[in-house]
Structures are given as structure tokens and as C-alpha cells.
């Protein structure tokens, strides 16, 4: 799987807000999305912000969680590339199963946001198992992250390196995110740099692309709109960010 540059992605928790509407939402956002990032519902979305946490809570309360929810994707038939997000904590003993299941539904990679922080010693195993399952690895980094690790990621030929710009999803603090993106770009060379966390405006997205990001992903803002105003509003935000991303002039003159 290759991802378009520049790219725009939406994060959705699989099965949110409930299974039937989830399929509908995927369908209606599709025309304004280059790829999806889909979260496997978990009881412990420990590094996520309040909106994403609530989305997991809701799906899990409805009796859905983990790899099982991938069946929903098979039924839905998803017409865009997608990658999965899951917490390593839930799959320490079943990493192979997770990655095989991901490959079988056509995911590009499985992002494990807690891998580097809580299981740094398992990084190589994750890469090996991803390849074994026919996937590429993808990696999470934060806005306070060792440079050597960003370089290590880059050397492993990932599908993408995800830079979490803010301390948690959906939480916006006064952080010089563009400066961090520029620095991350220097450290990862030409690798695909996906940026996310608390992006909710087209201008922010465009500025990130101009600073050197290859793509942006929006999660909490879309989840909130789906919940509070309905899918049409969510679609309209997605479309405006998609457009901003694709018309932003990148630092190397593309786009």
C-alpha cells in the first residue's frame, strides 16, 4: 500500500457510534478522505484524549472490542486505503494474531501508540511480525521524543511515522507544532510523515503540510461532530480540510 502525498486521513473508532451508522459514516466521508485510520475498540485507550476515550467506551459498552470488530469492516467494504490503531498492551501475547487479522482485512499497517513508551524492547519484534504478516510497520512518535528513535524509525522503511503533535488526541495546548514538524522532517528524511492530534481547522492542516508534513489526520473533531451535529457536518469539515491539504504549497513546491 502506498499513501498519497499530501494526504488527508480521518480517525474513527471501529463501530462508533454504533455498528450500523459506522458503515454509513465510512461511506459518506470517503470522497473527502485519502485514507482512514481505524481504531480497534479497547477498554484502555490510555494515551488518548477525552473524545477518543469516550468513543472507545461507547463501543465497548455495546459489547464490541478488539480484533472481532474487524468483521464489521469486511461487511462494510471500505473503498479507501486504511491503517489500524491498537494498543500493544492488549496484544502483548497475541501480536501475531493481531497483525495477521489486520493483513487479512487489507490494512496497510497497525499503529501501536504505546509500543515505544511501554514496550521499547519489542520494537524489532513488531517490525518482524508485521513483515511476516505482509504488512509494513508504522510508528508513533510524540512531540518530546529522542532523535535517535526518529532516525531508527526512518531506517526501518515504515509506511508512515506518525507524529503526535499534542500531549493527547483532541487536546490543544500552546505548542509550536510547526517547529516540531520541521525538526521531525529533518530527522526522518523523506519518510512519510503523518501528523495528528487536535487538528480541527483547515488552516492548521495546511500550515502543517507547508512545514513539512506529508499528511494530517483528524480524529476528535470529527468524532465530536458526528456525535453532536451529525455526519453531514462531519463530512463538511473533512472536505474543507481535505481541500486545504491538497491546495497547500509544500516546502518542496508540490501539492
Amino acid at each position, binding site marked *: 500500500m502506498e499513501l498519497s502525498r499530501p494526504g488527508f486521513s480521518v480517525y474513527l473508532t471501529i463501530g462508533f457510534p454504533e455498528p450500523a451508522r459506522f458503515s454509513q459514516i465510512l461511506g459518506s466521508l470517503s470522497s473527502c478522505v485519502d485514507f482512514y485510520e481505524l481504531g480497534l475498540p479497547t477498554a*484502555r*485507550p*490510555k*494515551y488518548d*484524549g*477525552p473524545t477518543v*476515550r*469516550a468513543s472507545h467506551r461507547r463501543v465497548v459498552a455495546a459489547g464490541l472490542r478488539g480484533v472481532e470488530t474487524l468483521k464489521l469492516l469486511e461487511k462494510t467494504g471500505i473503498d479507501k486505503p486504511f491503517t489500524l490503531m491498537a494498543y500493544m498492551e492488549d496484544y502483548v501475547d497475541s501480536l501475531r494474531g493481531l497483525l495477521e487479522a489486520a493483513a487479512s482485512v487489507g490494512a496497510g499497517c497497525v499503529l501501536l501508540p504505546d509500543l*515505544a*513508551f*511501554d514496550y*521499547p524492547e519489542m520494537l524489532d519484534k513488531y517490525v518482524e511480525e508485521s513483515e511476516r504478516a505482509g504488512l509494513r510497520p508504522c510508528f508513533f*512518535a*510524540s*512531540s*518530546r*521524543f*529522542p*532523535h*535517535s*528513535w526518529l532516525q531508527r524509525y526512518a531506517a526501518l522503511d515504515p509506511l508512515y511515522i506518525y507524529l503526535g503533535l*499534542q*500531549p*493527547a488526541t*483532541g*487536546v*490543544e*495546548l*500552546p*505548542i*509550536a507544532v510547526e*517547529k*516540531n514538524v520541521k*525538526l*521531525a522532517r529533518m*530527522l526522518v528524511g523523506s519518510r512519510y510523515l503523518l501528523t495528528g492530534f487536535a487538528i480541527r481547522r483547515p488552516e492548521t492542516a495546511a500550515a502543517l503540510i507547508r512545514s513539512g508534513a506529508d499528511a494530517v489526520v483528524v480524529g476528535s473533531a470529527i468524532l465530536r461532530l458526528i456525535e453532536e451535529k451529525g455526519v453531514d457536518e462531519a463530512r463538511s469539515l473533512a472536505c474543507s480540510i481535505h481541500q486545504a491539504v491538497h491546495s497547500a504549497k509544500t516546502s518542496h513546491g508540490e501539492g
Partner: protein
Amino acid sequence: MVDVPRYWYNIVADLPVPLPPLLDPLEDEDSRIALLVKILPSRLIDEEYTLSRLIPIPERVREAYRKAGRPTPLIRAEGLEKAIGVHGRARIYYKYEGVLPTGSHKLNTAVPQVYYALLDGAEEVATETGAGQWGLAVSMAAAMLGLKATVFMTRSSYEKKKPRRIAMQALGATVHPSPSTVTEAGRRALRERPDHPGSLGLAITEAIEYVLENPRRRYVAGSVLESVVTHQTVIGQELLQQLPEEPDYMIACVGGGSNMAGFTYPALGMRLRGEGFDKTQFIAAESTAAPRLSKGTYRYDGLDTGLVLPLARMYSLGKDYVPPPIHAAGLRYHGAAPSLSLLRKLGLVEAAAYSQEEVFEAARIFARAEAILPAPESTHAIKAAIDVARRAEPGSVIVFNLSGHGLMDIDAYEKISSRIVDGQVPEPANARR
């Protein structure tokens, strides 16, 4: 010529493994992380979440550092070497942060934080203090920059550390004993335990509650946060210019960890990047009253007792731990800075805990040998340095951070001198060997 550094050093960029993030408890509907924007100066938040290895020191802050007496001296402790009988066998140096006008390293971060609060348009800063060193530094920085300061001082210190409390008040600060009746958290603690001696964790909760009441207030943090730790690296950055030789041991006391981190991180960073200091042992000296790095567990825990702040992964004794009152009140915190905790977990930093009695002895030796009254906190580093010097290989070099002077800790010295007069303190110089 040693100059005031132009940059602070952010060790997070060089850590061997990623630093676990701050965390909201899962069950929370809201985000404590999101709340930081109402608590901390915004520029401090930016420094907390930066990929940059070096952070430029604003010119106004550099200027204040210079006026305050930076660079601070690095001194060869020949008097101490002789007093403990290692002269000619080991060389001991100390970086003396006590020359700063508030008497400790705390001004290094008080100035930038108060300056950042000013940039946010704040009118008042609030904080907690144990020994009063931090509270005094904030009071002075606030006076320098024209803001009001409110300080929640742990009750046991409020009662014992009168000189520092009065100095804060003279500089215009309002000082409340914590637990206080000013905040809900304080009133609750007093209801549960009317004789509560206070703890830093609780005083933090009170200061934050106070800040959240009014958008023109900002909280300034004395230690623990990475951004605060980073500010203290002026100490270690200067030290790199001053060290005549690469040390075998670098030692500092640990409360929240900023003094230890500030002193050692620039050298530790060189070690992590493979640029030197590979034989150096980095030793954290703490108090047996709060031995988090020696006896705590590495886990997610509250930064403050009231859980207003997010959780941090660190060595901790538990957010509700109330340490017994000691003179080194600045070491009475339940946790240690996340980066320092991680380095300890990885074995790059060692820890040793000392009792009040042991460190008094070290204070007495040092005062007579070097003609400086050390702060009770710093005395832990002196004690560790003495122990290390006595057992080190011939030719060893030991450097420690003398984080503050003890001229305002008369209560502690009153106790030592009365014992000395009573003849209760044994002559330790050679007795131990």
C-alpha cells in the same frame, strides 16, 4: 572566560528510550492535560513539548541570570579534602549555586517562568514551597518583573523556616501555611487531620486550585516538569565550560529532581551521544524521609495529592505519602522528575538515601572546612560526596552541586550547634576509616 549559556539543554531529545507521556486517568470524562493551559504559562507548555535539543534562553532571562550572579563558581574543595583525609588521593569540586541572591539554584527557573507568566498577561503567580527556597526565588522573580506572588508553604516549614517566610513577605509575597483555609483542598485536609504538617503534593494542589479561580493567575512549578528541569541545565552547561577534568562521580541531592538534572544532564547528554563522560557515575542523594528513587516504584502516579494535574510515569512513594518533617524540607516530595526516573530505571543514575543525622555530620564538617553553611538539602550531596571520596580509587575526581546555602536555615543549625556544644556529634574526620 565562562559565559552565561545561550541555550538550555533538553535531554528528552537524547534519551535512549522514549519518555512515557503525561496521562489522564482513563475514567476521567475531562482532560487534566487540557487543563494545563489554564494553569501554566503558555511558553512553559511549549518547552515541555518540544523536539528541540537546545532551547534558546530569552535575552531578558539571560540578562537577569547575569545580574543575579551567573555564571556561578566551580570551587575546588581542598578544605573538605583535608578535613576528611583524602587530600592527595581524591579531588573534590563543587558548583556553588548558593551565591545566587535567593541562596539556591531555584532562581534559574523562577525567572523564566515568571517572565512567561508576564508574556501571558498574568498579574499574579502562585506556587507551593517546602523549605522556602523555591518560594523565595518566585517571590524575588515576581518582584523583579512586577507581578504579585502567592506562596503555599508546607505548614511544618511555615512554622520552622521563619527567616525565609519573612523574606518572601518582605519581597511582597503573600504566604499561606499549607494545608490552608484558603482552598477547598486545604480545608478538606485540615478537617481530616487538624495537625497536618503539610506535604508538597498537597501544597501543589492548593496552589493550582488557587490559580484556577482566576484567569489572571499562573502557576509556576518548582521542579519535576521537564521544562523546569531544562531551565536548571544552565548549571550543567556552565559546568562543562568550567570542569578542569572529567569527573568519576557527579553528585546532587534530589527533591523533585531539577537540581540534580540541571547539574548532570548536559554531561549525561554527552554520555548518551557518545561524546564523553563514559566513566562518570551519576549519583542522586535523597533523604530517608522520602526515598523515592531508592525505595519507590516506577509507575504512573499523581504529580499532586489532589490529582488536579495529569499522571506522570516516575519513581514514586505514592501521591498521598506524607513524609516526616525534616530540616531538608525541599527533599520531601513523593516523586521524581519523569526523565530522571527513567534514567534511574535504565541504570544511568544511581541513588543513595541518607538520614537527617548523617547529613548533619556532613554539614558540620563542610561548614568548618569550606567556610560555607550549606542548605540542609545540599548537605545530602555533601554526605554522598564524602562517602564516595573516602572509598574511591586514588586519583578519583568528584564533583557535586552545592544547590544552596543554609544562612536562612538557622533552625537546623541551632540543632547541630547545640549538639556540638553538648559534644554529641562524634569527631567524624578520621574516625570512620
